[in-house]
């Protein structure tokens, strides 16, 4: 019964929160409408039969969030320096990274992390050989980037999703 | 006194953002390839959204924040459609 009406409770609560933020009020009517919207949209989402996400370790999720925030700050400064440096020959290129992570949600999170960090971008993913292709703006040493991605992000994502 | 400085700094920020938008437009006109133009259009959306936020701060109106939200969402839809078109357009040719 509960599964039927609340197939995705987290999604429903998030939609309610977004609704309350947009309306900027806590009036009973707003909360009621937001709750109805949250439940209805979550049920519609369930009709798409999405694969279930299972996050095991919420402590690691927090660690990952802090780490990604710090990295975004640092690489913003690094990329800004590269752009403003005059006439520096830039060595950028593609890097192929063999992955151990196979969970689809984990890969989606990794894609968002790599792309939102300035200086690196997710290019493509080979699902049969499990090889990820990224493009790096300032490529000095391929091995350094492979180690960075694997050690800083992939290990945490393996702990969270697999 | 310090508020004149604040006002001046916001105007300076707006000038910077206008310059940023003009750079994006230059890249959009110059290309050289279709993907460069789409990328520049996306950057233009984001700069316009940030500029709207500064206008909101200067005119004490939260309405601009909502306008920024809409620009962000429409810009996303537009860029995704164009990127999809770039992939498909070549197939049909």
């Amino acid at each position: 019964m509960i599964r039927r009406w609340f197939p995705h409770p987290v999604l429903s609560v998030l939609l309610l929160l977004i609704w309350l933020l947009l309306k900027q009020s806590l009036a009973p009517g707003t909360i009621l409408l937001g709750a109805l919207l949250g439940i209805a949209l979550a049920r519609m989402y369930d009709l798409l039969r999405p694969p279930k996400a299972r996050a095991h370790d919420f402590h690691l999720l927090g660690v990952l969030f802090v780490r990604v925030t710090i990295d975004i700050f640092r690489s913003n400064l690094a990329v800004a320096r590269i752009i403003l440096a005059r006439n520096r020959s830039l060595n950028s290129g593609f890097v192929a990274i063999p992955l151990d992570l196979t969970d689809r949600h984990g890969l989606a999170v990794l894609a968002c992390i790599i792309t939102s960090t300035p200086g690196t971008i997710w290019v493509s993913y080979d699902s049969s050989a499990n090889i990820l292709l990224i493009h790096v703006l300032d490529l000095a040493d391929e091995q350094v980037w492979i180690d960075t991605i694997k050690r800083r992000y992939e290990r945490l994502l393996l702990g969270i999703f697999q | 006194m310090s508020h004149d400085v604040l006002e001046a700094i916001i105007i300076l920020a707006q000038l910077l953002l206008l310059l940023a938008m003009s750079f994006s437009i230059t890249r959009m006109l110059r290309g050289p390839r279709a993907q460069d133009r789409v990328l520049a259009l996306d950057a233009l959306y984001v700069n316009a959204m940030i500029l709207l936020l500064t206008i909101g701060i200067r005119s004490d109106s939260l309405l601009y924040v909502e306008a920024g939200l809409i620009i962000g969402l429409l810009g996303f839809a537009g860029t995704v459609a164009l990127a999809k078109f770039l992939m498909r357009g070549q197939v049909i040719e």
Partner: protein
Amino acid sequence: MNHLDALPPWAAILVAVFVLLGALFAFIGSVGLLRLENFYQRVHAPTLGTTLGTFFMLAGSITCFSVLHGRPIFYEILIGVFLTLTTPITLMLLVRAALYRDREEGSQDVPRKLPGE
């Protein structure tokens, strides 16, 4: 008389710093868009505006409106939430489209197609 005069000095300084930093990062991102040499380099530049540029500008806006209205106003973070969710998707799609087009043309600068892609 201006509504900004109602800001206490500490808030005025904070707002000024945030607004200037936000505009600066967006500006540098667009400079990169103009100056970098090829598409795969240029695609990195606008991320500056969508991450720290937007972050600082939202921080300035939240500080300004919360202090002026005397209550926390933070629904601007919705812009940040939507932008963090959508930017990776647009950039990834764009890079994939560019890669596809370059491979169609037989360009030697991009890696060859992997079997399981």
